[in-house]
């Protein structure tokens, strides 16, 4: 039995609700019944420690080179870096971050994307990395382009990078999107605006970080991530034999 504390409850008013009619696809894909609140069991407080099974490739966090067919990806060269902490400000070490994104023209390398912008033969748009002992991570990529999508007629997504994080427990699992400081499409985006609180939206905006640029190579953006943290266990009642 896991004797460590439970994770702090998720603040559902901070996250986007399920039903957000401004983002039309959510209308038929949002539960109508309330979520059932349950206590965390051993399974939810544990997480997949042995993933990915085969380990990482050294180029996994370099999206400029990891799909090379002889050249490098076209676009504005950037480094995205930051730190993964929990709500108690503790670093989350050794956790897997997966990223995916469109190319510089706003086109995804996906069977189902038919946007007219061309594919870049040297760009796949998938990467992953593990945080270090202090929770730091970085990857190198090109800045993705905005792209149109069907919602209210032709809406435009701001430039964004999708990301997925595991944490150490299944209840810390998180999928979200990173936006870029100063992008005028951010306030116009129906998906961004599923998040009710402007302060929460601001947390998804990566900041230009001139200090961490790679001189004569790549600009840098800083993006810190916060996962759920554990409660302390001062007052938990412990029974004999558990």
């Amino acid at each position, binding site marked *: 039995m896991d004797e460590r504390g439970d994770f702090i*409850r998720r603040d559902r008013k901070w996250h986007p609700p399920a039903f957000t009619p401004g983002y039309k696809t959510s209308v038929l894909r949002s539960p109508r*019944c309330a979520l059932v609140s349950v206590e965390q069991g051993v399974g939810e407080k544990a997480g997949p420690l042995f*993933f990915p099974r085969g380990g990482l490739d050294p180029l996994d966090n370099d999206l400029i080179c*990891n799909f090379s067919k002889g050249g490098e990806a076209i676009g504005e060269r950037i480094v995205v870096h930051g730190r993964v*902490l929990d709500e108690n400000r503790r670093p989350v070490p050794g956790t897997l971050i*997966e990223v995916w994104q469109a190319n510089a023209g706003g086109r995804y*390398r996906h069977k189902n994307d038919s946007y007219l912008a061309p594919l870049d033969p040297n760009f796949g748009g998938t990467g992953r990395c593990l945080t270090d002992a202090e929770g730091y991570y970085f990857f190198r990529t090109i800045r993705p382009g905005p792209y149109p999508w069907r919602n209210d007629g032709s809406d435009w997504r701001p430039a964004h990078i999708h990301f997925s994080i595991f944490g150490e427990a299944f209840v810390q699992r998180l999928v979200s999107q990173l936006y870029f400081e100063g992008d005028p499409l951010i306030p116009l985006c129906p998906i961004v605006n599923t998040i009710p609180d402007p302060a929460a939206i601001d947390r998804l905006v990566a900041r230009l970080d001139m200090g961490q640029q790679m001189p004569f190579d790549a600009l840098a953006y800083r993006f810190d991530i916060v996962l759920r943290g554990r409660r302390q266990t001062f007052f938990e009642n412990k029974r004999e034999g558990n």
Partner: protein
Amino acid sequence: MPVAYLKETPSQTGGPYVHIGTLPAVAGLPVRTQENLSVLASGSVPGERIRITGVVWDGAGHPVKDALLELWQADAAGRHDNPDFPGFGRAAADFATGAFSFETVKPGALPWRDGRTQAPHVCLLIFARGINIHLHTRMYFSDEAEANAADPVLKSIEHAGRRTTLVGARDEADGVVTYRFDIRLQGENETVFFDV
């Protein structure tokens, strides 16, 4: 002043192209094609071999063909720390039919918080376009009626009629044990989703 915790990073939808980052071969990328994360059990892992299959349905009764599912479970002995059985899997809905499928072993019962026992179950997360924050559910097993009746999480669902939405139906054909588990996002027989 209240104590300041950091706020969790807010969620956003995985979107329709979630596979690029999570199952690149499914997206059509010629990378990591040897990975098949929907198969959890290989070699001589102890336990009954099972398949879990189903469809995620939207509120109009259409299959959610871009859904990504993640499965997390204990091994056949009810443990999460078995290096030979990581207990984590991923499967994409079929782009044509919406069907998903996992190959795994049936998990054992797990301990609960106060010395009670949880019935065997798997945890499932659902990601898709239009889902702003992933949905968390559980599948229990139809041949475990007695354990299910005593399960603390199932019992915490106030409307007893809804508990059946979390039970996969066992079927044996041609030597393959399959549990059918459909997930209804909305409407009649809406699946129970948890805030854990």
